[in-house]
């Protein structure tokens, strides 16, 4: 076994974005030949740390030492030259380029200036075999492959560059089954060869299986660090969350209302396979959770309900009236969507907070098309108070707000409309812990006031904790239904992966 010396060490890193303090004092050490699990809730700052270690971002303060030298990477290239590389959470696979070109990108093999195709092919073929993609067509466009295979392609790319530190940011998020096994084998292989592997994941089973060391971030700071043997799953969760888990979720209210939302034989349009039809009824006051693996079709189902994704078959009714297929019809019926991608779909970041808040009710704050600014300000103040939004004033640019406050503005925008069905997709993604609890509280109160709520999340605990009942999505359809409340995690996972019974 190679020596287990420290190859990378970060001390006291801080980093602020407009409105958000992403890192506030992170310490981190990676050692050769070991798999180091970097853990933390959504928004804890893991990816930001990766960004700094790889030269994509610059720390505001703090020091970084790589192979004994103090470094301040100005570009990913400098980091790569120093032997630090990453497989990013956001894929960097270029869909229009071939698999071969993607794998070899940035590390092309040339002979006299000319790409050496045969050598490239054999190198790529070898790397792809190691991640389980031995049969992949090197000449096909990468965009034609599933997200999971693209993720593996990207990992194959990382294998070729013999880096001393390899960071994998949530590589398992889109993988399951054989593909996950293939990934784990590769990680072990890398560590065995003396590479320092930094492994970011939300799956705690993986930590137990793979990790040698553990570092836990909370709210942008290192809260615990040590060898894996000192961390059992319970401790990890406690350190990550910083409080006991079930205290966060408000108790789901009594169910008394009528059915508001009804789906009969709904099939969202799909480019690939035709999923089984979905039937669903949601009552006023009810919170229905949707769980599933990445790419299982949660978002697609939610978008279909809100009219943002076309319907291939079936009927969607609100209070008995059909609404399917059109955003504007859905909005008129009071079906509103808090989308997964807050920045690209939820908000117009260039506009002010009050402008975003009133975006869906422009007709109401205006007289003959003329916006009454006082009304706009009033609406903003009302929502600010109701949801506890922290912003400097009605004219603050939305871009400058923190994730949680931005998310609250998306919700505020819909509350202004007076919705009957609230559809939330990943409502707490990129939201810090404090704001998370507040958002849970808001969702639960809204349900109690008689809204029908559908909420999807990749965080199992969140779906289970919030909902009256949980639907489990698999392969674009609903694989089963379970009662809400914490404790069903394992069953949900079985349903999601199709491994039960």
């Amino acid at each position, binding site marked *: 076994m190679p020596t287990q010396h420290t190859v990378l060490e970060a001390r006291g890193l801080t980093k602020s974005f407009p409105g958000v303090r992403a890192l506030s004092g992170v310490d981190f050490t990676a050692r050769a030949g070991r798999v180091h699990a970097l853990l933390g809730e959504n928004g804890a700052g893991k990816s930001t740390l990766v960004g700094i270690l790889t030269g994509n971002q610059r720390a505001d303060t703090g020091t970084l030492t790589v192979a004994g030298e103090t470094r301040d990477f100005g570009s990913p290239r400098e980091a790569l030259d120093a032997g630090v590389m990453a497989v990013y959470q956001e894929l960097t696979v270029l869909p229009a380029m071939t698999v071969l070109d993607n794998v070899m990108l940035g590390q092309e093999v040339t002979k006299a200036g000319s790409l050496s195709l045969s050598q490239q092919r054999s190198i790529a073929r070898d790397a792809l075999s190691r991640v389980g993609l031995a049969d992949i067509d090197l000449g096909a466009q990468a965009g034609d492959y599933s997200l999971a295979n693209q993720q593996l392609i990207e990992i194959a790319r990382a294998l070729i560059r013999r880096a001393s530190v390899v960071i994998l940011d949530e590589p398992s998020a889109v993988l399951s089954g054989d593909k996950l096994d293939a990934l784990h084998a590769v990680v072990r292989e890398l560590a065995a060869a003396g590479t320092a592997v930094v492994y970011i994941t939300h799956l705690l089973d993986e930590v137990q299986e793979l990790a040698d060391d553990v570092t836990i971030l909370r709210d942008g700071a290192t809260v615990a660090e040590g060898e894996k043997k000192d961390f059992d799953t319970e401790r990890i969760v406690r350190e990550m969350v910083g409080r006991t888990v079930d205290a966060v979720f408000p108790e789901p209210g009594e169910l008394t209302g009528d059915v508001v939302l009804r789906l009969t034989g709904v099939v969202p349009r799909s480019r690939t396979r035709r999923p089984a039809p979905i039937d669903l009824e949601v009552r006023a006051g009810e919170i229905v959770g949707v769980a599933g693996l990445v790419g299982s079709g949660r978002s697609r189902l939610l978008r279909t309900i809100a009219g943002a994704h076309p319907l291939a078959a079936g009927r969607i009714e609100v209070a008995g009236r059909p609404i399917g297929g059109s955003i504007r019809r859905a909005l008129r019926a009071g079906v509103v969507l808090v989308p997964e991608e807050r920045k690209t779909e939820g908000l117009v*970041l260039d506009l002010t907070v009050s402008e975003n808040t009133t*975006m869906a009710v422009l007709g109401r704050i205006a007289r003959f098309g003329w*916006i009454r600014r006082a009304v706009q300000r009033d609406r903003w103040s009302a929502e600010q108070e109701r949801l506890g939004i922290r912003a400097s004033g009605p004219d603050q640019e939305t871009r400058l707000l923190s994730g949680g406050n931005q998310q609250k503005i998306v919700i505020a925008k819909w509350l202004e409309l007076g919705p009957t069905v609230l559809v939330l997709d990943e409502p707490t993604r990129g939201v810090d812990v404090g704001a998370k609890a507040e958002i849970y509280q808001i969702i639960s109160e809204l349900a109690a006031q008689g809204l029908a709520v559908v909420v999807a999340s990749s965080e199992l605990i969140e779906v289970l904790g919030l909902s009256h009942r949980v639907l489990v999505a698999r392969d674009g359809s609903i694989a089963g239904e379970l009662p809400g409340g914490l404790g069903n995690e394992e069953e949900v996972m079985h349903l999601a992966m199709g491994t039960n019974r």
Partner: protein
Amino acid sequence: MSNASAFLARSGRTLAPLAGLIVVLVAAAITTPGSFTVDVLRLVLFQIGLIGVTAIGQTLVLLVGGIDLSIGAVMTLATVIVATTTNGDDSALLVAVVLAVLAGLAVGAANSALVQLRSVPPFVATFATFVLVQGIIVAWTRGAPSGAIPDAMRWLGIGRLFDFIPVPAVVFAVLAVVVGLVLVRTTLGRRVYATGANPRAARLSGVPTGWIVTGAYLASALTAVLAGLINAGYIGYVDAGLSRSLDLNSIAAAVIGGVALTGGKGRIGQTVVGVVLLAVLLTWLVQLGAGAGAQLIVSGIVILGAVWLQSGRFTLSTIRHLTRRTTTAERG
């Protein structure tokens, strides 16, 4: 703190073209000292009117993330229609103007259809309609548009308000104020900005983005028709030769003023500054007696300089970046 720096950045964006304007004015004062007269001012005002009207339409299209290269062709189309249908007869003017407006709307609709229904990049779509409209004019008039411009129209081009301000400048001012107010103060304007800055979010919020984009192209075509009428009124003839070049002035004006080519960012006020800068520049260059070559060179430098100044990479953010780096160094 962040608010203050945001304010600085924002005012930097607005001040940059103003700074450019001042530079040009100073240059003019030095090189052609005789040109600071009331008469020259009137000339500048007229230029402002002529360039400005189309610049407003162009700004709307830029705001929704498009670009309109077909303006020059639509201007000529309007002139030709008025000349041929009226043949100088005042009583037929109304019908002619209606026809010109309809023709303009048809071009705007074609642009919008290409861009939205077929996802043709606006640059290519509007260039295609430019060539097509050009072709229609030539095929229709056999290259020699006949007819005459009614006298009633002349007022639009050569009239003066209070015996001084050229009517085109007044038309531009009114248009700028109206469009400016609509953009900033009405639901329509809000929807335009939302559509340009983030079409997906806007659509999910119930904004009919398709109609907004269509509206922008239609509005741009209408301002082109108006500019065509102003031109016809100014000279009183069908000047078909004018249409053979793309009208890049409207784009240049908006861009100099700081309207973003990427959509969703820019105020009419910025376009106005850009228009004034361009008008002063063009007038000054003619006054200077600069050759055709020098005029182009200076125009190019001014466009680049103005945009560079506002890019923020030139001044404020660079300074901020530098200060931040030093503090890091001190603490590190």
